[in-house]
């Protein structure tokens, strides 16, 4: 292949004795773009040190940091039930799950940091309300059955979204997703198991399960994002091999999966319009309330204020601890340096 001669261009020019001329900079950009285009054409990977188009960097930074924020804010609705989990085994599983989410947040912030923004800045943007996170976490977890519905439907939708991201063109993101998806599939299974147990339990338990499925169904479907004809960024993300399937494609596929699984649960989905279209060979669902989606996205959901306040409070309460750790590290480093110079 002729394109094999193209080389990666470093994201940062090597330190030069003088400022590169505009011609040099333009040449670097052209060479970088050529390599980037080759990587896209070959469906291969861009790594943090490679040159990349500024818009690609910006898109990824936005997407990965939003994803990280979603993990962190997403801890809250489930943490809400740790203290009241109805058996010790369920308590242990739920604790482990919420802990996994903190871990996912950590790898995703790390992946985003490779694009040049420190975690502190991303956190600050989240607390300032400048950064978005998945709107689903602005709904309240009202009953224990919500732990089941969140695991089965919300994590299920997340998996449908994230499995294709394991092949995302940006290396650190794709690799983080591999690990995240493995854990998410455990999470989905535990959610399914909670609902199955409730559905086969007392009439009150079964009702609790059905009501949770009813409440989380539409918000879970809206996790895939707006319909394709109203999703302006999707096309570019697909061209950059970040996104592999359109929002509607993923959503329809997810509906099909849920239709099979809900039968095993002995529950129903609150949508009488779900059907398999024999002509298109695709699942279809009833209309979704996109006005509500946009309201919640705009900050007017049931828990937006609560979720952000909780994050700010934890951050503020922890400030003196972080300062102490930094001061201690500095003192230790100084001691070490004194020891070395004395020796």
């Amino acid at each position: 292949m002729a394109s094999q001669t193209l080389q990666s261009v470093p994201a940062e020019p090597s330190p030069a004795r003088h400022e590169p001329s505009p011609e040099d900079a333009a040449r670097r950009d052209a060479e970088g773009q050529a390599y980037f285009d080759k990587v896209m054409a070959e469906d291969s990977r861009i790594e943090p040190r490679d040159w990349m188009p500024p818009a690609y960097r910006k898109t990824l930074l936005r997407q990965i940091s939003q994803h990280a924020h979603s993990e962190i804010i997403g801890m809250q609705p489930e943490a809400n039930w740790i203290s009241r989990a109805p058996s010790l085994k369920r308590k242990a599983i739920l604790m482990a799950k919420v802990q996994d989410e903190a871990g996912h947040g950590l790898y995703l912030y790390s992946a985003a940091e490779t694009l040049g923004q420190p975690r502190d800045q991303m956190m600050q943007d989240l607390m300032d309300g400048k950064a978005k996170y998945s709107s689903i976490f602005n709904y309240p977890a009202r009953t224990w059955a919500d732990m089941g519905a969140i695991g089965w439907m919300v994590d299920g939708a997340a998996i449908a979204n994230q499995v294709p991201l394991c092949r995302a063109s940006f290396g650190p993101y794709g690799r983080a997703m591999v690990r995240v998806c493995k854990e998410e599939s455990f999470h989905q299974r535990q959610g399914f198991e909670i609902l199955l147990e409730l559905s086969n339990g007392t009439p009150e338990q079964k009702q609790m399960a059905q009501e949770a499925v009813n409440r989380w169904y539409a918000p879970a479907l809206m996790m895939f994002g707006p319909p394709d004809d109203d999703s302006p960024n999707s096309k570019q993300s697909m061209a950059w091999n970040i996104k592999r399937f359109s929002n509607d494609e993923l959503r329809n596929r997810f509906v099909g999966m849920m239709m099979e699984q809900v039968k095993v649960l002995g529950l129903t989905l609150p949508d009488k319009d779900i059907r398999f279209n024999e002509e298109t060979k695709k699942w279809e669902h009833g209309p979704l309330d996109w006005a509500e989606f946009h309201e919640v996205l705009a900050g007017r959901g049931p828990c937006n204020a609560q979720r952000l306040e909780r994050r700010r409070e934890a951050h503020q309460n922890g400030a003196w601890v972080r300062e102490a750790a930094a001061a201690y590290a500095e003192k230790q480093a100084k001691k070490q340096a004194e020891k070395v110079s004395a020796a």
Partner: protein
Amino acid sequence: MSTTPETALPAEETAGHGDINVGVTGASGSGEATASATRITPGNALRPEDIALAVSRGSAKPSEDAAEFALRLGDDALILAQRLGHWISRAPELEEDVALGNIALDELGHARSFLSYAGGLDGRSEDDLAYFRSEHEFRSAALFEQPNGDFAVTIARQFVVSYYQFELYRRLMSSTDSTLAGIAAKAVKEVDYHRDHSAQWVLRLALGTDESRQRMIHAFKVVWPFVDELFHDDELTGRLSEAGAAPQPSSLREDFDRLTGEVLAEAELEVPNVQPTPGGGRRGLHSEHLGYILAEMQVLAREHPGASW
């Protein structure tokens, strides 16, 4: 007490996950840096379910005294796990959400094992014991139910707990009761990490900023009145000690004082000069906090008695 625990389980119980005794003899007093905290041999973890199974098959059956003792340790760990769980999503750093969550999970795992064993006396499950006992039936010491306070108080409480539990479990590994020995052998490795975690934070908070130092000093003052109770001997521990099944709590004190003293000295802190509380948790006499902890923990299970989850 012997250094090698007796193998009380029949052969079929010593394979796979049922093997409670494997690996017990190897762990040393200081904990092994290379030992996995969650596995007793490769691919072989001692889970609460294994103990429940051994109990239900009748291959592990506690004496009345051992059951009461397991209840004490199980309740300590359960109440602490309940307290620590509150930090998840509220910690000063994401890394601490993970760390405190992990410690809570470890403690919960120990609680489930001890309670499963304790329930073997009269056929109650871990959940029967956790969710359907009243306040006065709990046997935890007062330290475990103390509020989280700020991060320094949580760390001070954890520091005391982990150094105490380490000394206890280290000795319990050579119990003549092989189930207690097995649970302790797994737990001691995990608690060794808890010691490291809390000691590292004691140093950072005590030697960090002026504010963190003041908070750390205050936190130890808050926590220290509850230290003495952990080391009280009573008739039960006397009988268990006689039988080689458990150490006398007072026998742990010297090592506890020495090892915590080393960390406090490095942190330039003194053992707080405070009066001890009389205790009473081992007899069901608790502080005012426990009722609230149980109300929250038990509410859902009690709304649906007999339900399975």
